[in-house]
């Protein structure tokens, strides 16, 4: 509809349109391109089954597996069991649940939630809706379509009235740039960006001119926005240069869009519709590069472009060929998120261990000689440890302690279990970031530590209740079985001999108060790094 100019930033990324001639499977191609950056350093070996299993469950199901699932997988001798597990998790209902939670945090950054938005995201991932379609629906929400109108929450929450504060149209403009194009235009609001030559004030102002006409119009049940027709161009001046400028609507880094003529009788032309049709397109390189980079980050723990919202020519990707390939393949596969996650999960880069083997006299290897402290996260020589979202940590804590099923049972009137609601609230308060801060790194805090140390509900989870972990462990006939069940339940692995001995000694020492002793051991596991980090 509107011809685009290939300006500086676009030109940088035109390489992506070259067709992928390599016929090998994508994961192998990715691994090869990542390996180019190893520069002679040996990578960590592949993760063992237990490490892989915990990781893939957390990434695709948002929760650790049960001890039984873990036992089955570890005992399974089929060499194809990892890809089968990936398929199984991508097909499970927990996939949509996990993606809903993940994308809610990515897109809303803890601003608050809405039942309709939840439903919208859940349905989208359940049906594996292509990313470009989702973005179109978010950028131009349809209030008439019951299945899609929850998408309006993205806009509506950001521009809702907040006391005496002005409506945050600049914030919305910034977020659309950040989250869908990977370009944080904030500092280009008042002048061309000082440090990033690619970001111009007109790019911010052009998008902003569209959003200035947007108002929140939510009812308590339904998020919604209304759009006023744009009458004239937006005037702006740089704080450094008093020359008066103006711009009409603009997709950042694209051409200005003529202001639509509003016919007297015809329905008004929606600029949101124009935005929705022009921004999430194959021609818009930043659009596909942003999402490819973000999905890579979800799986690998470090963006190829990092920070995730600073795609520009002075902040190139750590592995340009990997990002080029991912972005073009993602477009070629119609923005299929499930497909993309599968490809990433199948790669060795994903399945690598998060630790190097320790040097020992009889197991000297090249990998053991690496100084792990010197290994930078963007090398992907080992799997990066990833933050657990508050939701992942809660689900996993509940599953580990054998309380998940009890709490997931809805009460009679169909409302969620009150204890679960309260736990969710407290976990989010303790472990989530402040609103508007992306959750892109591990974030231990005194607040979280005090919560884990002293919160009533947390401690209740490790006290005996019918059928929960403590209850099961107390019923075990041998310490050997107990240790297995305990470690499989919490750490998704079997204990090593040292751990078995330690546990046995602990139980013997505290034999007079066995329940409390087990509870404390479980608590210590739950609060340890092995549990609170996705490794």
């Amino acid at each position, binding site marked *: 509809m509107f011809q685009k100019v290939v300006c500086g930033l676009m030109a940088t990324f035109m390489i992506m349109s070259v067709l992928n001639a390599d016929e090998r499977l994508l994961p192998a191609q990715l691994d090869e391109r990542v390996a180019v950056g190893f520069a002679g350093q040996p990578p960590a070996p592949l993760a063992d089954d237990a490490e892989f299993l915990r990781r893939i469950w957390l990434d695709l199901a948002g929760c650790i597996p049960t001890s039984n699932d873990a036992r089955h997988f570890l005992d399974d001798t089929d060499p194809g069991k990892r890809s089968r597990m990936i398929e199984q998790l991508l097909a499970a209902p927990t996939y949509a649940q996990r993606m809903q939670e993940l994308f809610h945090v990515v897109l809303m950054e803890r601003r608050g939630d809405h039942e309709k938005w939840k439903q919208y995201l859940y349905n989208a991932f359940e049906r594996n809706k292509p990313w470009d379609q989702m973005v179109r629906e978010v950028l131009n929400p349809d209030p008439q379509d019951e299945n899609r109108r929850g998408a309006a929450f993205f806009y509506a929450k950001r521009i809702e009235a907040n006391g005496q504060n002005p409506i945050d149209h600049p914030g919305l403009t910034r977020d659309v740039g950040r989250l869908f194009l990977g370009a944080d235009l904030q500092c280009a609001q008042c002048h061309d960006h000082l440090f990033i030559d690619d970001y111009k004030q007109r790019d911010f102002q052009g998008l902003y001119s569209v959003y200035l006409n947007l108002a929140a119009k939510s009812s308590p049940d339904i998020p919604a926005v209304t759009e006023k027709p744009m009458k004239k161009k937006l005037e702006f001046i740089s704080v450094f240069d008093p020359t008066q400028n103006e711009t009409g609507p603009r997709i950042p880094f694209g051409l200005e869009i003529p202001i639509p003529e509003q016919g007297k009788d015809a329905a008004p032309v929606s600029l949101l519709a124009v935005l929705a049709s022009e921004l999430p397109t194959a021609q818009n390189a930043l659009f596909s590069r942003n999402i490819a980079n973000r999905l890579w980050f979800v799986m690998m723990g470090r963006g190829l472009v990092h920070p995730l919202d600073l795609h520009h020519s002075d902040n190139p990707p750590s592995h340009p060929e990997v990002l080029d390939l991912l972005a073009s393949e993602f477009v070629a596969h119609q923005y299929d998120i499930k497909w993309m996650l599968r490809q990433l999960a199948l790669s060795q880069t994903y399945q690598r261990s998060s*630790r190097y083997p320790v040097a020992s006299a009889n197991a000297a290897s090249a990998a053991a000689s690496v100084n792990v402290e010197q290994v930078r996260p963007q090398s992907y020589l*080992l799997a990066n440890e990833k933050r657990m979202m508050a939701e992942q940590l809660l689900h996993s804590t509940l599953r580990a302690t054998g309380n998940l099923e009890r709490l997931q049972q809805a009460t009679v009137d169909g409302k969620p279990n009150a204890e679960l609601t309260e736990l969710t609230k407290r976990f989010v308060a303790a472990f989530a970031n402040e609103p508007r801060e992306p959750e892109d790194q591990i974030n231990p*805090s005194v607040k979280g530590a005090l919560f884990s140390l002293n919160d009533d509900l947390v*401690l209740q989870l490790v006290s005996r209740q019918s059928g929960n972990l403590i209850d099961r462990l107390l019923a075990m006939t041998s310490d050997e079985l107990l240790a297995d069940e305990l470690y499989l339940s919490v750490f998704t692995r079997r204990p090593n001999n040292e751990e078995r001995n330690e546990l046995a000694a602990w139980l013997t020492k505290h034999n007079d108060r066995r329940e409390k002793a087990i509870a404390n051991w479980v608590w210590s596991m739950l*609060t340890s790094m092995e549990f609170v980090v996705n490794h």
Partner: protein
Amino acid sequence: MLGAAAAGGLGLGTFLQPCVADELAKNDKQVLLIWLDGGMSQLESWDPKPNTEFGGPFRAIPTSVPGIHVCELLKHTAKQMHHLAVLRSVCTQDNSHSAGVARMNRGDPKNRGVEYPYLGSAVAKLLGPTSSGMPPYIWIKPNSGGFKASDAGFLGAKYGALALGDGKPPDNLLLNKSISPEEDELRNELRRKFNDRYAVGRRTQWTDANSYVYELAQKLMKRDDLFDESSFTDKDRQRYGTHELGRHLLLARRTLETGVRFVKVNSYHWDSHGDNFNASESLISQFDQPFAALIEDLHQRTMLDNVLVIVMSEFGRTPKINSHVGRDHWPEAWSIAMAGAGIRKGVVVGKTNDQGTFVEDKPYDIGHLFHTWFKAMGVPPDKMEYDNQGQPLPVAHDDCGPIDELLV
């Protein structure tokens, strides 16, 4: 709740024993940063220009240091001037809040593609906790508290601020009653053992951070008496005032006494674009009274030799008085006050012109002040660099150095 618990045998007020203060006095450097958010007018405070075009309605008054005058709104502080140093030639870069707050707090290092830490996080990293083991960075602020990791920038969350919302203790501060102290020690011992095992073969960054926050949390749990407002004397309350900043500065005194390395106290809503002079009367008096009391107390407790006190904002206010009788944002020529550790006493450094519009001699930016403060705190020159995963980063702006006239 806390009062009862504290009285129940957790050592109410023990930290107030003079011997503790004496111990601190001999030991570590500490910092108190008072941040007046929105921008306090220099003309109505540290750099009055009475009866000049932009001078406003107020008088200048003499201080305890002959020859130095401040605005009459600082009537209590004027009596403590012999402890203070005022830099009147501050000239910074930003006239917007968003850029100014960030840059003043980060010390304006050159852009190196990383987010620099705020001063409190920087000090927490460079000097760590004091010998008290208390969390090194506590932020007393209005409204909500929590843990503010964003102050830490690239240093990582563990150097963030523990924020006490309206001086209230953080949630979950008290040991859960179902756990005995002995049990608590045992379970944490196990946790540490599990972490040590986990760390083998891995980068230690996150495990270290995790251990660190648990240590701080446990330390803090033992000092819940910190938050017991009822243990302040009526006289203290009267001297500091019962308004927000008064209460928070009184709590800051106690927080310093317990050995917290860096205490930040924020006061908001100083952005007097309209009706600046009535606003200044209302606001500056709320600063003046408790600030003067605090300086006096720190001095009397012989803590002032070790505690660096800083008063600043993101910028000053325009000399020009706008049509709303307000003053707007002015980074060109304004004042920052300081006192204590390593800082000269009873001096004014720098000068603005007769109109107060621009700096007359050498202008100083926040980069110079960060160098000055790090030096005052005794940060050794070889520690003036961070290691960001192999990337060396200077802790303060490369092109600036300390302002010697401010230093002892």
